[in-house]
């Protein structure tokens, strides 16, 4: 009789090749293709304002991804994120101001500085854990910003260092649309790097670290080394994000890197969903767009001018509220919601009842 291979329900990996694939199953491949297509078409459909929003989202995603690597995967809490962004931005600013360094030199330089700072930020992590680590990184944030401010004052750029648009292959990147593609490229690269990093030995080591350092050490994972590595990689990425920010906005100034920026990034990874790269991206989108959404809604309301004065306050309050709501009611963040939706549609019309005794 003829051998009919058993029909599989669902997707099973039947070979090592499949293990290495980034995107499994045809359906996923199709949707991914559609999504990237949409991304490519988007800039030709909308005006500069939305392009600017998109660009902000890309910048934020890079930063959020790097923070997610550090906190969401390696379990090292850092409140020095804004400081690192500042470091990247100021590297560009200084290189440009002093030596008029081009894009392709300044960017790697920023990455390098970031990596070096990563070591500095990471050193306390060898000795400290949890909150204390967070605090020490916070302290370092202040130091970095202080130094930046000093430089600004020394050079007399009270209102911030203005940076010319970078030129790539002779083109100078000015138009929002061009920027869109540049930033899209960098964001995609960042995502790709993260994915593969987490599939590697290092990624697994980080996960182990996060869940239990002692056990990780017992399993022969170099705790110190991997912690530092996490800091270095994440910091380098962050610095690049900062550098891109500097180029995109065309200026560098300490005021742009307040403590609140750090809070925003932390919020991104919480709201997005700890421990998921997707979460970092979703969080970046959400946190970046929230204020504009609120503003737009308020300006759409009748008598918008009257509210003009309170938009900031409302934004602020709303931001805090959303963060709280997520922390309290949806610790898994947007990713959690996303997964629940997926399950719902996959099981539709059936509902899944929670295990008896679960809350």
């Amino acid at each position, binding site marked *: 009789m003829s051998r009919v291979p058993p029909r599989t329900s669902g997707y099973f990996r039947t070979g090592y090749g499949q293990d290495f694939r980034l995107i499994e199953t045809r359906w996923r491949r199709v949707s991914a293709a559609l999504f990237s297509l949409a991304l490519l078409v988007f800039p030709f459909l909308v*005006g*500069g*304002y*939305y392009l*600017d*929003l998109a660009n*902000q989202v890309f910048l934020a995603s890079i930063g959020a991804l790097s923070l997610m690597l550090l906190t969401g995967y390696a379990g090292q809490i850092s409140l020095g994120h804004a400081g690192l962004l500042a470091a990247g931005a100021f590297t560009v600013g200084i290189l440009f101001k002093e030596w008029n360094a081009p894009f392709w030199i300044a960017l790697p330089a920023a990455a390098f500085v970031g990596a070096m700072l990563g070591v500095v930020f990471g050193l306390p992590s060898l000795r400290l854990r949890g909150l204390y680590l967070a605090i020490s990184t916070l302290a370092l944030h202040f130091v970095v910003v202080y130094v930046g*401010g000093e430089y*600004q*004052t020394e050079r*007399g*750029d*009270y*209102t*911030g*260092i*203005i940076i010319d648009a970078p030129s790539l292959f002779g083109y100078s990147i*000015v138009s*929002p649309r061009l920027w869109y593609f540049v930033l899209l490229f960098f964001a995609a690269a960042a995502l790709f790097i993260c994915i593969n990093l987490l599939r590697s030995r290092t990624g697994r080591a980080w996960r182990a670290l996060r869940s239990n350092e002692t056990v990780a050490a017992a399993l022969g994972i170099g705790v110190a080394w991997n912690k530092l590595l996490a800091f270095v990689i994440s910091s380098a990425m962050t610095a690049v994000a900062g550098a891109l*920010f500097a180029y995109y*906005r*065309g*200026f*560098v*100034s*300490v*005021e*742009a890197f*307040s403590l609140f920026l750090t809070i925003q990034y932390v919020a991104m990874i919480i709201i997005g969903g700890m421990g998921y790269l997707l979460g970092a991206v*979703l969080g970046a*989108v*959400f946190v970046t*767009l*929230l*204020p*504009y*959404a609120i*503003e*737009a*809604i308020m*300006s*759409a309301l009748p008598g*918008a*001018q009257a509210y*003009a*004065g*309170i*938009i*900031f*306050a409302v934004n602020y309050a709303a931001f805090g509220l959303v963060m709280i709501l997520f922390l309290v009611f949806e610790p898994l963040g*947007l990713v959690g919601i996303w997964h629940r939706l997926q399950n719902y549609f996959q099981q539709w019309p059936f509902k899944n009842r929670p295990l008896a005794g679960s809350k």
Partner: protein
Amino acid sequence: MRMKIAVAAMAVAIAGSASAQDAYVVGITSALTGPPASTYAPAMEALRIYIDRVNTNGGINGKKVNLVLLDDSAEPSKAAANMKRLTTQDEAILLINASLSSTYAPTIGEAKRASIPLLFAGGVCPNEVYPPADPLQFCTTAYAATFDSRGALTFVKETAKGEVTLGLAAMAIPLSRGEMEFAQKIAPEFGFKVAGLEVIPPPTPDYTPFATKLKDAGANWVFSWAPWVTQVRTFEALRRLDWKNDYLTWAHLEAEGELQRLKDQKLFVIGANSLYQDNLPIHQEIREAVKKAGAKYPAEQMSEGWIAGMVIEAALKGAGWPATPAKVQESMQALKVDLKGLRGGPIEWTKDNHFRTKQFYRVYRWDDAKKAIVVAKDWYSFDVK
């Protein structure tokens, strides 16, 4: 969340279409809220009142003026985003920045890319507006780096009897620090000894330590050019230390009210705007307008915005209709606006001077005998070259 974005998109679309009517669209990014709001929000409210008045009186060249007022709460990135929106969405023909200096760099960048004239009203004037001026940038703000220190030290020179040991107090923001360092540099030209320069971090629970240092350094005159908080708290701290000498500081919007609160004969405020106790016709006019509009801020804080309004009106009138950024810029490059006594003289712009040809100063102080604020030194001016 997708939903939210959709809503946002719709809403913005509405806003956009609303602003594309036939009117002069003037785009503003300002620190309406956030920590430094108290400096900028009143000015912008004044501007709004002024423009509303203009509109009710039939607008300019028969066209209404549409102010698109966006809040950047003094965050550079927010300001940049606002500018993007104003230039791409609302198609403004004139941009206004009334915000903290840290928002200048991005604002200027965006204005340049869209080549739309940019007016600084309420925030300090950037270097680009002084001769030789950047074609796109203009400034109506009263206070001006370097000139203010010169004006202040001149006053000290004339008023002080005998040896002057000058103490300087700055807030730890680049702008204020820079200005005070400049004052420190030029002090010797006036024959002053500099007791020291205190750079005070913005949030300070107690100003006494800084004051103590100034006092111990033997300063018999102190000059402070910084946000009002720093100026006044340093002063109060000094007084608490029983320091009885003269204190000269910049007359911010709050000055008039604060002079009355503090009632100190030796507290001088130097400024370019006349105070409302002069009670000129223009002041009464503003008071009435403010009362009619039921404004949140007192009339005493409205001068900056009012002046900006006068200038914008003149500029748009000159640009005619239909107006383009280019036309507006052209009319701004040769503009003379009589400020009816709000300042010592008119605002006059030429091709390479977008600040003003003469910068006027006046010094006030509280007088116990008169139980009122009196002029300590009347208008005196410096040529801007």
